[in-house]
């Protein structure tokens, strides 16, 4: 057997992994610590060089793989992400904040100064940007792993793929395919439950529909996400109020283009 010359770690020390946090809840980085069975194996294949959630011991860059969690919401973050990119051979953004702005991107549809005035006694001390933006709005991203939070098995799959220079097996199709593979009865068609599954990116394994509730799109849009048609059916046939439709589009991935465009159209009263 001919050995694979492309392997990252074949002729030198273990590849260095860094995990970065921007504006986020830490849930996606915790998915890495949550990889209980694989964690020791992972530590054997990678030098976990920078991961503050796990250890305060850090090693200098550059890093072979950087996992980036969170969105960019402050001027300091906007600078720091440039530095992370400079130090990273491969940059993978993980989670809804990093890939589509996260819940905090709801500010993008409102007046941020009104928020800071309402919350802080001295809003002039708050250095925050008007908008929360995904990592890809600031630097080149090599791979985006969607989800709120991400699926730990998908994370291991993506890391394995980059380690061994093969394409990650992360399907871009709908949650519906995962539902049908499980043999679930469709909650939309059989129960009349509004479900975001048909426009939502697979990866969770169709957890919510498996427990008889509608998908609420925490994995963001799938490829060719036809939110217009879905929302039309929700309104006309499932009798869902426009406010609730907009909330579902903005839950976790408000800046994902397919969700953003439809939610803005509906917020402007252009409901169909």
């Amino acid at each position, binding site marked *: 057997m001919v050995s694979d010359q492309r392997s990252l770690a074949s002729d030198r020390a273990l590849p260095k992994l860094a995990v970065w946090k921007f504006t986020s809840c830490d849930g996606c980085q915790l998915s890495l610590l949550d990889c209980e069975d694989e964690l020791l194996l992972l530590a054997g294949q990678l030098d976990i060089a920078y991961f503050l959630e796990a250890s305060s011991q850090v090693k200098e860059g550059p890093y072979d793989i950087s996992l980036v969690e969170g969105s960019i919401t402050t001027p300091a973050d906007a600078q720091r992400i440039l530095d992370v990119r400079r130090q990273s051979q491969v940059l993978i953004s993980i989670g809804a904040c990093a890939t589509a702005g996260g819940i905090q991107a709801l500010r993008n549809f409102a007046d941020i100064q009104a928020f800071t005035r309402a919350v802080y006694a001295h809003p002039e001390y708050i250095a925050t940007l008007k908008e929360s933006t995904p990592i890809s709005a600031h630097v080149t991203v090599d791979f985006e792993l969607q989800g709120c939070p991400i699926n730990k098995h998908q994370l291991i799959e993506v890391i394995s*793929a980059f380690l061994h220079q093969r394409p990650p097996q992360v399907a*871009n199709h*709908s949650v519906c395919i995962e539902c049908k593979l499980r043999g679930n*009865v*469709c909650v939309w068609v*059989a*129960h009349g439950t509004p479900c975001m599954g048909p426009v939502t990116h697979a990866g969770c394994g169709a957890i919510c529909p498996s427990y008889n509730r509608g998908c609420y799109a925490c994995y963001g849009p799938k490829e060719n996400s036809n939110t217009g048609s879905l929302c039309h*059916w929700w309104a006309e046939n499932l009798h869902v109020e426009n406010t609730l439709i907009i909330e579902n589009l903005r839950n976790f991935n408000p800046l994902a283009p397919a969700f953003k465009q439809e939610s803005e159209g509906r917020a402007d009263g252009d409901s169909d």
Partner: protein
Amino acid sequence: MESLKLRAEHLEVLIHAIRADGYQLYGPLLDNGAITYGEIGTASDLPQGWTDEQEGGQYRLKRRADKAYFGYAVGPHSWKQYLQLPRRPVWKASNSGGDLQILEIEEAPVKLAFLGVRSCELHGIAIQDRVFSQGNYSNESYTRRRAELFTIALECTTAADTCFCMSMNTGPYVRLPSDLILTEVVNSDTHFLLIRSGSPEGEAILKQLPTEIATKTDLKQAIEAVDQTAQKMRSGPRNFDSSDLKELLYRNYDSPIWDKVAERCLSCANCTMACPTCFCSTVEDSTDLTGTKAERWERWDSCFTADLSHLSGGPVRADTRTQYRQWMTHKLATWYDQFDSSGCVGCGRCITWCPVGIDITEEVQNIRAQEKP
């Protein structure tokens, strides 16, 4: 030869006889607001007294006024889930110091029996047989699971509003071979299953049952029950002439109808997952973190994903318009060139389980209407 009937209370004996013969028996059962297929242990597992109402994008269970065991139309599941498995491991490999070992995964032989297979579904299985067992692309897993399949077919006495087997010449009368064939008759006076065998294996089971000779009245009632299903479909809105479908679709590759459908289609792939004949699968290859273990899995895929048509340079069908066109044109037209039959059996699953109710029969009419000057 005399016709035989089995009283409804003796359905249990039939179920027991099949299971005692070593078959894993699958059939209809109530599951989470629908009639799905699952393992059947006793007659009480069956959805007795239940039926369904179906329309585009909508399915609802309803109580029947009688105690019919098979008084429903086809549901979200199809038998393909037991023959072409949704996910299965194909092989595993390990590489230890340059010593590459590949282990093919071969499942233990299994004897499957399906209870309540409608004519449209027998056609669905026959179509998949041509794809997986009789053509150039044989699938050994399918062929092995199919080899010992025992079918208990059902003359269809309940059609949903989404059914159009009459248009596709696939029902409701059972014309394809089946080991046993039942016709359920239920009314205020009587409840029985007319039963006949279609194979030596079926005959062997039939001989074990406490059957009775059917009277002329019994036979008349059974024929009428299926005839009224045929009549319902013939007079329904989804009845159409399918004789020119191949030519129609070949002529309409650039029809503006495809753009109209794409505005509604979610490309969610539910139609293809629910379809009893859609056979597309993909293989997923992955390695573990160490790079010394690899696996290949086969799983259902769909022409509504860009990955399915991904070739060097990108997907051939990246957008919903071309994906829907591919699905419908393959199903109703190019399937003839490839497998010498239609790929559609008229079961209506793609209509019911489409979240936005896109109706393949309606799209046929739309394309036809668009063509007229």
